[in-house]
């Protein structure tokens, strides 16, 4: 191509440079976001890979021989430790402040060949290995709140076995006898590398859908920046056609003049991503940050992103220019849009059908075809995304037709007519927001699954949220329990220590259905109606109950004939006291389970990955909404600039500026409101489909307040995006705009 021609096409005016800068900037932001998102997904997956060993559940440490009676089994016999096995127990509620610590107690033969990831040979009894983050916590906290739980520091766990720099992991050494006591320990020989267990394909599907959902707005941004200043460029291209350039040449010029700033922008984006990567890694996902190194995606992938981006923008520019059909005289009359038809609903319906099929297969027909399910789900999701953008103009057209018939004001007639005649152009301005709202709804719906478990509030008849309890092991003598309670009471912030009794420890098969208490102790457990006997009883389910229970009188029971089965420490509710109580119970040596508080419920979650993704989703959402708002602002501004002469003449004829503003607002609001409800509904439907596909026990519930905040933010942003260019309305439609230039 003649470089002189290109120069004529590209350079010349300040606004041309502005447009090139806009393209470069937009592509830079897009590429940077893409690389960071990709890196984040990589990081999450690397993190899950590294943490996979923590999901190892091993094999049972006791063997129960089969008997003839299928409802019971013979007496369990311990499976002996060998050189290539280790006994391991996980503590599900090792809690410090409001953080869950991943604790493994390990016992092994001295000659063991088992290697624990990040440590190597299992620690000796009384020693522990901790992740650097946990060790820092231990060192900065009094021992009776945390450190005493673990023993003596033996070393740190290597990063290679830690999900992230903030992971709290501890591996403590224990004796075989200690671990065999409660029967919850299991035997391990090596550690799994599959982070998701059996539901890996489902999680991978969710990850892909998430990636698409976040990629789409970025794509939209790129598409918007390449069309910046389109009207002005059409004139320039018309000049080129006039002096003899063929449509192909013009098309090629458009491609090259977009590719160059796009390439510059992409390079800038790569640099920006590298600079921002350590910052992005600081964002905590599921309680821990990512290792910055996990977020690198390699040069090959980076180059691929840049190449695809540059090629895509160039291609889009060339296609658009060709489609605009710029003649030598320019596009003097407005291009008439074809009236959209009902056919536009096809992709959306097809997408819904495609997504429903695998869910029906799995849940209703109970057929599992893994090679088909995930692709169908992903394809369906893509179709719905595209379908929303495709159906928008049709719905907008229908609504504007009704609106035009009923319009009764100048602003109404003008806006409705414009939308009616150019539904595609008007919908395009809000398509970004529509997609953002859809994506936000999907993630909000999906993550609402995990908002369901909440700690119950304090109520009489229920264990107080500020208290901790631990059931006692079989060997605990009443004197030992009393001593432990006495010691605990001496700690600051622990006003009460109550012992509950029963015929046998709760893990024993002879355990009774009730826990017996001294009536004088009952008020300290939060009971208000205490029967007037020396001893009272409450059902054992009291310990984990979400419902208030009542005390019953137990006049016949004599506590001296019973054994202590549970110890409950009441605290003043400060985190320090809670942690002190927990530490005291756990190191007492008489407990059968780790100390537990009703508040611990809050920290337990099931769907780690989706929840992690939800955090990313809210980030992505913000990006999507911001981009969508930006695109709306750009579109609104160009809606004003493209019509500045006619709008200026309208003002000159006496149309108040407020009417012009109303026109512009309506032109954005009508298509947005038309499709936004559909977006919300579809978003939750899709979320439900995906969640049901993974596990039918999950329930999609009312979304968290974050969602409404995000939705509100989108609408606010939309408002801002429409109002910001209002300053243009006054300035650009002044009398001077009506003169022919």
């Amino acid at each position, binding site marked *: 191509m003649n470089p002189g021609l290109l120069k004529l096409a590209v350079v010349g005016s300040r606004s041309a440079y502005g447009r090139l800068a806009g393209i470069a900037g937009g592509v830079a932001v897009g590429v940077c976001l893409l690389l960071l998102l990709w890196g984040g997904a990589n990081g999450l997956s690397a993190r899950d890979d590294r943490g996979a060993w923590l999901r190892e559940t091993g094999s049972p440490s006791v063997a129960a021989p089969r008997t003839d009676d299928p409802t019971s089994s013979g007496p369990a016999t311990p499976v002996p430790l060998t050189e290539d096995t280790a006994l391991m127990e996980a503590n599900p509620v090792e809690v410090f402040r409001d953080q869950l610590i991943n604790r493994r107690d390990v016992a092994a033969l001295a000659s063991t060949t088992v290697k624990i990831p990040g440590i190597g040979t299992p620690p000796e009894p009384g020693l522990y290995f901790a992740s650097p983050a946990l060790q820092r916590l231990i060192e900065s906290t009094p021992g009776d709140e945390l450190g005493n739980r673990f023993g003596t520091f033996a070393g740190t766990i290597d990063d290679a076995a830690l999900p992230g720099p903030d992971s709290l992991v501890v591996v403590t050494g224990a004796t075989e006898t200690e671990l065999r006591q409660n029967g919850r320990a299991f035997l391990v020989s090596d550690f799994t590398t599959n982070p998701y267990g059996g539901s890996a394909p489902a999680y991978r599907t969710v990850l892909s859908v998430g990636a698409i959902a976040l990629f789409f707005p970025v794509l939209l941004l790129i598409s918007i920046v390449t069309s910046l200043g389109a009207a002005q460029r059409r004139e320039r291209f018309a000049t080129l056609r006039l002096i003899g350039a063929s449509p192909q040449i013009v098309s090629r010029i458009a491609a090259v003049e977009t590719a160059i700033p796009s390439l510059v922008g992409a390079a800038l984006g790569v640099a920006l991503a590298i600079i921002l990567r350590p910052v992005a890694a600081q964002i905590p996902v599921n309680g821990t940050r990512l290792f910055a190194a996990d977020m690198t995606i390699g040069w090959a992938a980076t180059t691929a992103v840049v190449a695809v981006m540059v090629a895509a923008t160039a291609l889009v520019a060339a296609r658009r220019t060709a489609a605009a059909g710029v003649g030598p005289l320019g596009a003097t*009359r*407005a291009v*008439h849009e074809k009236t959209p038809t009902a056919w536009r609903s096809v992709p959306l319906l097809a997408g819904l059908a495609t997504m429903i099929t695998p869910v029906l297969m799995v849940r209703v027909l109970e057929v599992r075809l893994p090679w088909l399910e995930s692709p169908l789900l992903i394809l369906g999701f893509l179709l719905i995304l595209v379908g929303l953008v495709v159906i928008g103009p049709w719905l907008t057209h229908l609504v504007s037709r009704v609106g035009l018939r009923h*319009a*009764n*004001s*100048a602003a109404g*007639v*003008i806006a409705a*007519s*414009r939308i*009616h*005649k*150019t539904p595609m152009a008007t919908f395009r301005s809000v398509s970004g927001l529509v997609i953002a709202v859809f994506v936000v709804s999907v993630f909000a719906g999906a993550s609402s699954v995990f908002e369901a478990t909440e700690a119950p509030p304090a109520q009489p008849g229920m264990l107080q949220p500020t208290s901790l309890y631990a059931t006692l092991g079989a060997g605990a003598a009443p004197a030992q329990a009393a001593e432990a309670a006495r010691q605990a009471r001496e700690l600051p912030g622990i006003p009460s220590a109550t012992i509950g009794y029963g015929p046998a420890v709760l893990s024993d098969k002879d355990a009774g259905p009730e826990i017996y208490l001294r009536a004088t102790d009952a008020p300290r457990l939060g009971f208000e109606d205490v029967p007037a006997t020396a001893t009272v009883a409450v059902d054992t389910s009291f310990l984990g109950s979400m419902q208030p229970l009542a005390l019953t009188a137990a006049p016949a029971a004599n506590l001296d004939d019973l054994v202590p089965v549970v110890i409950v420490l009441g605290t003043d509710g400060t985190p320090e006291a809670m942690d002190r109580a927990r530490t005291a119970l756990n190191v007492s040596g008489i407990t059968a389970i780790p100390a537990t508080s009703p508040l611990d419920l809050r920290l337990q979650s099931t769907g780690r990955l989706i929840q992690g993704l939800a955090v990313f989703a809210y980030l992505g959402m913000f990006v999507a909404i911001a981009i969508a708002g930006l695109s709306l602002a750009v579109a609104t501004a160009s809606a004003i600039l493209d019509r500045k*002469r*006619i709008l200026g*003449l*309208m*003002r*000159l*004829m*006496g*149309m*108040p500026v407020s*009417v012009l503003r109303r026109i512009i607002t309506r032109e954005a609001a009508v298509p947005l409101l038309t499709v936004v409800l559909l977006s919300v509904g579809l978003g939750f439907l899709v979320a439900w489909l995906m969640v049901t596909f993974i596990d039918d026990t999950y329930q999609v519930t009312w979304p968290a307040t974050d969602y409404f905040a995000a939705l509100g933010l989108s609408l606010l942003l939309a408002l801002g995006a429409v109002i910001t260019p209002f300053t243009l309305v006054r300035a650009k439609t002044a*009398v001077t705009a*009506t*003169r*022919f230039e």
Partner: protein
Amino acid sequence: MNTNENAAPILRARSLRHSFGQTDALRGIDLDVQAGEVLAVMGPSGSGKSTLLHCLAGVLVPDQGSVDYSPAGRAGTAISTLAEPRRARLRLTDFGFVFQFGQLLPELSAADNVSIPLLLSGTRRQDALRRSTEMLERLGLDGLGAKLPGELSGGQAQRVAVARAMVTSPAVLFADEPTGSLDSLASENVLTLMLELVREAGTTVVMITHDARTAAYADREVIVRDGVIAAGYRVSA
């Protein structure tokens, strides 16, 4: 001629001065426009014709000088002292405008375009459309109300513009090169219809044109040269 020599002029401009940056567009203009007369404002390009029209119509506030608007049967208004919202309101209710081209909203049908000024002043849509259709018929555009501007010829589009300007029965019609982009025949057609309409309604017309044959439709003309009215055309008072 409907001019009543004894009545006060409907528009009276005195000592109008206006400049855009370093350029003096108006350098002291006195002008009387009599009620019911059709006045052509002529002059070379850049002489300040359009600026004069904008000042008379309350689009621009002159840097110096005054414009008084005294419609029959109503107290006079010093247009040049009003704030923009009041002037906009005045332009909407009392004035009509026709420009050279591109004044019709391309997405609106001809009838809807004509009805906009009525809607702006609070007329119900049905009534506005009825009056618009009548106005279009009077300009020989029967049956074209549903057409988009892009589907009309240049002459038809200008007649739609005249219909829109006249539908509110304005006291003064301002026309800026109303036939500037039409051929002789179309332009004669538009002017004849427009003049018939305004003379019947007694509308005062201020029409900018550089074309003598267009100006010949007026009752009189003034020449603006270098921001002043040429000597022979000055107000004698």
